[in-house]
């Protein structure tokens, strides 16, 4: 297991490096710069700004000094918020985005697995069509539509939940989490239905029934484990995508998470911030893919045995 983990971590290094290089040169190729503004900036001011951010150096030198700083965990100062560093903003925003992502994933898991399992028990009946139809709606519903709809219904009409914010009023974490989780709930529902259908036809469930086990034990204890296998391997990538897709939800609900930085930074040409968030995100994706692989390996005794 250790060997496997170490190997995967080593493999991640060139990935991250590629991401950095690609992003670095891509954003420099973009028209416009971090200091453009509606009112013309005088050449002197422009030059002084560039000097302060070391943009006057040759681009390769900038690239290598960025890498050198990165090796020390220094992602540099942001262009957008003078006086703040990228590290600081990521450290501030991450816990919030991670929390949002976590709740969303939990909601997705609970809703998705329930729907999928319920549907799989009676395929091609109403008990199948209704939850799967709902799952399809979840998949088809863009978050920029679902969010405002939920806000309108639960925030404005019913007045049950606050319309925005994060952690400032009780219950304000619910709507964003649902909005973000809905699509993933849909996918998880489909995955768990397919996985369960596969498992439900397996002989060992007949064995379990032959022991006299009640049906719920057969499903929960024997079937679920194998049936949710695809879901487990999906969770890692899903969490990573959740984090990178959270900006819409964060914008709609005014959540001070990391997600908004991605987009803002790209539009503002905040070079360091773009790089920082991209690198960070890529690292997260690698880590979560790894975790989900490890979890999948650990859950499957045969694989676990192989890696011993």
């Amino acid at each position, binding site marked *: 297991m250790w060997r496997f983990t170490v190997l995967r971590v080593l493999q991640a290094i060139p990935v991250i490096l590629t991401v950095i290089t690609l992003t670095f040169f891509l954003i420099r190729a973009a028209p416009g710069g971090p200091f453009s503004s509606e009112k013309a900036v005088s050449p002197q001011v422009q030059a002084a700004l560039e000097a302060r951010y070391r943009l006057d150096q040759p681009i390769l030198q900038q690239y290598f000094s960025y890498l050198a700083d990165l090796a020390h965990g220094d992602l540099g100062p942001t262009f957008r918020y003078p006086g703040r560093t990228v590290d600081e903003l990521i450290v501030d925003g991450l816990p919030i985005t991670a929390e949002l992502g976590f709740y969303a994933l939990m909601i997705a898991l609970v809703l998705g697995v329930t729907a999928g399992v319920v549907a799989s028990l009676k395929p091609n009946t109403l008990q199948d069509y209704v939850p799967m139809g709902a799952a399809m709606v979840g998949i088809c519903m863009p978050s920029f539509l679902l969010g405002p709809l939920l806000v309108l219904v639960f925030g404005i009409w019913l007045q049950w939940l606050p319309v925005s914010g994060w952690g400032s009023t009780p219950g304000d974490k619910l709507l964003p989490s649902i909005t973000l989780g809905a699509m993933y709930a849909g996918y998880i529902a489909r995955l768990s239905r397919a996985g369960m259908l596969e498992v439900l036809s*397996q*002989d*060992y469930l*007949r*064995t*379990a*029934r*032959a*022991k*006299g*086990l*009640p049906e719920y034990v057969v499903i929960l204890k*024997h079937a679920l*484990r*194998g049936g949710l296998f695809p879901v487990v391997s999906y969770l890692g990538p899903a969490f990573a995508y959740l984090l990178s897709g959270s900006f819409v939800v964060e914008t709609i609900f005014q959540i001070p998470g990391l997600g908004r930085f991605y987009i803002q930074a790209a539009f503002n040409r905040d070079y360091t911030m773009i790089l920082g968030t991209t690198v960070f995100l890529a690292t997260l994706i690698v880590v979560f893919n790894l975790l989900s692989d490890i979890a999948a390996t650990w*859950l*499957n*005794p*045969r694989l676990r*045995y*192989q890696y011993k």
Partner: protein
Amino acid sequence: MALLDVTDLKVHFHTRNGVVPAVDGISFRVEAGKTLAIIGESGSGKSIACYSLVGLIPKPPGRIEDGCALFEGQDLLTLSEAQLRKVRGKGISIIFQDPMTSLNPYMTIGEQLIEPLQLHFSMSRRDAWQKGIQTLEEVGIQNAERRMHAYPFEFSGGMRQRVVIAMALVAEPQLIIADEPTTALDVTVQAQILKLLRDLQQRRNIGVIFISHDLSVVADIADNICVMQDGRFVEQGERMAIFQTPQHEYTRKLLAAVPAGAKRPVSHSPEPLITITDLYTQFYGNRGGPAVKAVDGISLQINRHEILGLVGESGSGKSTLGRSILRLLQPCSGSIRFDGRELVHLSAAELKPLRRRMQMIFQDPYSSLNPRMTVYDTLAEPLLLHGVVDRKGLDTAVFELMDAVGLARANVLRYPHEFSGGQRQRIAIGRAIGTKPEFIVADEPVSALDVTIQAQILDLLLDLVARFNLSMLFISHDLAVVRYLADRIVVMKAGKLVESGTTHDMFTSPQQPYTQALLAAIPGRVLRDLDDSPL
């Protein structure tokens, strides 16, 4: 009083295409300490009959229409699901056919073993665990205490079947339904398991319903036999009565289908077609594990117009050898000469013209046919590929092939899944002989088939070999089949050749202890004794 008394059991399946009477009014009794065998081919309804007793058939579409099954004074067929659950595992337990799939791969043996104990006897986990260990020991598993923590995949096939048996026994049922418990096993292992079952049964005085398609197996252990066909018992009675004086035509057909007797040696001067010298094929283990030498220095010769039987247990490397000869696997050293040409180092392109001359028939007619190709496409593909016929003659050629393997022409546009196993194997044979090859490797072509079908396919093969002047390497674990078909036999064990000789010699005077053990393990001694006795 009988342990289980079933009268007039009727189970129907209500499908979209109408009602199928899967079990159509059968009656039988099982006594404690006795074995009742139900014999029948696949689809005869034997498993459904037994499963319906404990409510394990899918409802719908299945429905118990009629009948009565008295067990411990209650009619099983009228019990509610909750009441049935109390019977399952405790009163009646089941040993399923495939130990591979009937154990939950995600749970340890111990967890699975103690489930019925905790459920039916509300035992504490510790007591249940102890009992589990005892039961494992009872079925002959070494290191039971440690093995409780192992997962199913860590066991070999035979050991796994022992676990399944332990699981059926652990709650000390009065009745066990054993559904083809040895079909997936090697002969020697099968013999051990059968012995184990018999011992346990006698020791605990339990009744057994033994479901099988294999008369030879049943012959050794059953007290009473029911012969089932199309949902009905065509004949039932005491074991020897069934074998000695079969009343029903179907019973006679089944008995006749058991491959018996040896092929008469054909005498023509041996002219080698394939010469194999010092062949090694190995598989590399996962993640730098040690290489497995599947074929470990084999030298042998296959003559023209000869059927060479290759016998060995699973894992002996016999399939690997067959595939290596056809270069479906790349041998790592040695030489294979086909009609004087060295095959080992030929490129794919160089091999292609030779492929026309040597073909293969596979074991599993379910997976050896592309499910998305019709019979026509399947048969036409090699013909077109090797330019055996042009497009104009294609239809005729395909029809002729179908005639040759005994398939109705009307089926030409059907897909494999619409055929029975035997018909599918006919398609596969048709595909193999389409290019008029000189040499065919047949890898267990009948082991997945019912006995009567098996007999037909064997005869078809014999016929084709004669008609097309084929040479054949016939791989099988079933000695009776090999004896029926082969001119010569080679025995393999752990990648090495153990013994070879003419069929007659091998069966009458085996030299090596392993060969002797194999022969001894062949089930159906009773039948053979019958055969040998002048009727």
